[in-house]
């Protein structure tokens, strides 16, 4: 049985004077695996940040009927975005520790997530890792926090094919495990092909559908 995770009605998003999304309405259900597509500069990142609750829409209604947006939404940024003064394991455990998850449990989950993404040096500092490894650590940080809704912005941009497959597989497994949803903003056609739902952003208009 599916549950509604995100509901948007007549959502309008602006970036300064630029209109990004105009009066869009959409629903994200548990189990959805959605590719957010559109040309560069169309506003995919802005839409993802709005759906995550980090940006306020100009107008319209945005709800998360069955989520606590602070806890249950995980965001994978375009760049790895790790705190440079924390180790890989500490970066992954950070969201858990901020929620007061006990340290042993937080670090156990962090190491497990890193292992799932084939990171073998949990105590390495971010600057000791390659760009691809850093991105996988950032994905592990989302997985360890066990959010129901994962929003990923070009998560495989800095990865090779094998790395991208590992990340996508891990995200899929996670979403299934928590009965959640995944929205991936990407230009990667292979990635798009692997996701059944579509959100297409063209000239401020959002079209929701399924892959052909």
């Amino acid at each position: 049985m599916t549950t509604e995770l995100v509901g948007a009605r007549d959502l309008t998003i602006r970036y300064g004077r630029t209109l990004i999304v105009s009066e869009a309405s959409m629903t994200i259900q548990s189990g959805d695996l959605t590719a957010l597509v559109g040309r560069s500069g169309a506003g995919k990142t802005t839409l993802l940040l709005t759906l995550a609750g980090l940006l306020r829409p100009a107008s319209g209604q945005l709800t998360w009927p069955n989520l606590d947006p602070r806890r249950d939404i995980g965001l994978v940024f375009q760049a790895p975005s790790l705190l440079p003064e924390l180790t890989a394991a500490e970066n992954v455990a950070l969201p858990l520790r901020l929620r007061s998850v006990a340290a042993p449990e937080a670090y156990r989950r962090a190491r497990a997530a890193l292992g799932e993404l084939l990171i073998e040096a949990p105590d390495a500092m971010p600057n000791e890792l390659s760009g691809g490894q850093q991105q996988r650590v950032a994905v592990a940080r989302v997985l360890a926090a066990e959010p129901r809704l994962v929003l990923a912005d070009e998560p495989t941009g800095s990865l090779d094919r094998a790395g991208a497959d590992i990340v996508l597989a891990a995200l899929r497994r996670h979403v299934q495990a928590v009965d959640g949803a995944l929205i991936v903003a990407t230009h990667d056609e292979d990635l798009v092909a692997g996701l059944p739902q579509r959100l297409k952003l063209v000239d401020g208009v959002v079209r929701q559908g399924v892959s052909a």
Partner: protein
Amino acid sequence: MIAARWLAGLVRRRPVEMMGAAVATAIAFAFLACLGAFIGDSRAHMTERALASLPVDWQIQATSGTSLATVDAAAKKLPHVRAVVDVQYVAVPALETNINGTHRTTGRAFVVALPTAYSNEFPNTLRVLVGKPAGPQLLQQTAANLGAAPGSAVIVHTPAGKPAIVVTAGVSDLLTADSFFQTVGVAAGAGPSAPPDNVLLVPPADFPRLAAGGEVIRQVHVSFDRSWLPSDPGKAFNAEVQARNHFESQLTGAALVGDNAEVSLSSAREDGLYAQLLILLLGIPGVILAAVITALVVAVRADRRRREMSLVRMRGMPVRTVVGLLAVESAVVAGVGVALGYGLARLAAHWAFGSSHVPTLWLGVAAGVAVVLSLVSHLAPVRSLLRAGAAAQPGRAIAPAIASGRPWPLRFGLDVILLAVAGLIFWLTARGGYQVVVAPEGLATTSVNYAALLAPACAWPGLALFVWRCVDFVLGRRRGRPTGDGHELVVATVRRRRRLISRSAVGLTVALAVTLSTAVFTATYRTQSRLDVALTVGADVAVKEPPSAHVSPSFGDRLAQVPGVQAVAPQQHRFAYVGADLQDLYGVDPANIAKATPLRNSFVPGTTINQALLDLRRTPDGVLLAAETLHDYQLHKGDTIRLRLQTGAQQRYTPITFHVIGNVKEWPTAPKDSFIVANAAYIAQVTGSNDVGLFLVKTNNPRATAHRIQPIVAPMGASVDDIASARSRVTTASGLAATDLSGLSRLQLGFGLILAVAMFALALLLAVLDRRRALVLLAALGATTRQRGRFLAAEARAVLVGGVIGGVVVGSAIAYLLVKVLTGIFDPAPDHATIPWGYLSLLMGLTVVTASAIVAVMGRLASRAGLSTLREL
């Protein structure tokens, strides 16, 4: 054209950053310009002050065979001459009185022919204590020796052997006795160090009959209009010496000049060097700090500037154009800074010195420094991009490496080396008695032992680096327990950012240390100059009885009843012969004297003042003697000494036995040369008189208390003096008087406060900006405002604690070094430094408030994610 567009864009888009840089430049400019104003102002005042208190500039002594009229005529032709008066004196075998059947005879005495006009032509030379100013005058000490009063007949034993009688009109005090009786024409120190004990002043008409048969010293006393002399004391000294040499050469041996102005200017010249040292030791660290702060303000947008410049370089802009754009930007910042700074400098100079004049030369120097500072601070952040062939890197590193490890000075142990050198030089300076300014009396050359300044010069960077090492060490060993919501991660963050935190803490340390050391030094100076005035006056308030008065110590009980009086101590003032040397003798109550007047350990070399007073209490016939007396008479502690004191109704000099208990260097109201301190009770017992010469009064409000006491003691003819009134009158031992130093200290403390708070604020601001991305990321990961604040607060706390502890330690150490190295500026030398708690509390309070405000406000603003920031994650 492109420069104009660039500038217009900056003004439109970055007005706050540009203005911030201009304000920081203005502060650096104003501080330097004000220091220049201090140098000019203090030097000009030193010459003025050195000569203002000098009643007689030259004492031209006619050599044998030259008539006084010839010398007088030559003196009157001198340029800028203001007053010329002939003076003669002769040594006579003795003076004698026979009053009420009591015969008193002095030893060798001097009879001086002094015209009545003398005190008009040379004000502040002669003060009539009792009697009339016209007619023969006995000096105070002579009157005491002879038991004479106005109207007494004094028998002068003339050199010819024929006694002559002079009826005294009054008893006077010759305020310039030291210089008056100087031996003209001998090297400094070769003549007698003290004026004669017995002196009779007579009108010139009486002189020939008294001087018959004696060798008469004939002098012409001259004063000049000194406004033509250069304001710099060194140059004024040279001009003075040249003028004297010229005059002596014109008279070709007919006269010798005793140049009082030269002696006074020599001292002022020494003070000028001390002022120079103060600039070096107090001012330069402040200027460097101001420069660092300016660079930091510009550095606030260094990262953005680097990216902008990378972009324009990538798009093909030549290095020369990039440099040109930055140069124009820095010139505009410097121009605005100089304009603002000029106004600030005038305001600050007016506040600090009472004059808003800033010398043009110093304005030029400060403007030059401002331009260079602005240029360097604008170009430095992008220097790597300006190198030919350097790769432009507009993007940010994916995960920037945090600065870690120790900086190279710490790796090489530079802090330890510098501190060792500072310690060694300080030890050598201490061994030489802290003689930093070498100014031999009477010689034209003065010099500064600049090597001694190496101690503070090495101590500054040495201590700062050592604080860096300590902060780094402490933070590197911190481990947080995994409790609460990520405490261990906060601690880990601080531990791994310790290089940046240590650097900020050192910045705060230096800023606080500059301010703290200046505050302690100037507070110590103020205390010592107050003590110096108190030494001259005697106490907060001093009641001086006239020579003929008979006042018992019990009168002190009446004075103690006066509102505002906290303590009263009577002090006897007598004279006693040590061998043939007549010295001032002070009889005190060792149990109570310290309650009424400030006594310091430095008064009694080799012991503490408490121990010396205790020894005096335990030894009723004990005496404290001057070092030269102990030396000249080969006396040691425990030795018996027989002093001749006036005893009994006849006031005859009678030998009395005392025991030497120690050495005394300073005492309230005592002269600079030899004197004696003894038990008042013992002196009263052996002389048969407990007459008190002075009552020392302690009070919180000297002026008001003096006013209250005045009517009570007026009927006895006693005079009342207080330190508040005397401060403007009494010249402190260093000509760099409180007015000068208070100006510099106001300047230092005012700017110091601004610089310390600005330094800390900037350090934190840079940390916030540096961590802005991290704060936004934390917010995106679900951290609450409080949790984000904790990351920032931990860093601020580390900077604050490290900086404050470091600042207190370094500031105290530097203050100690300053007080010791500049010991020559103090008289007497301080026992310990004075801590200005009020100012320091204000400084620390403002620093903490600034820290809290920045962490609370900037932290919240920085973590408020805008779209552009979130897109960068």
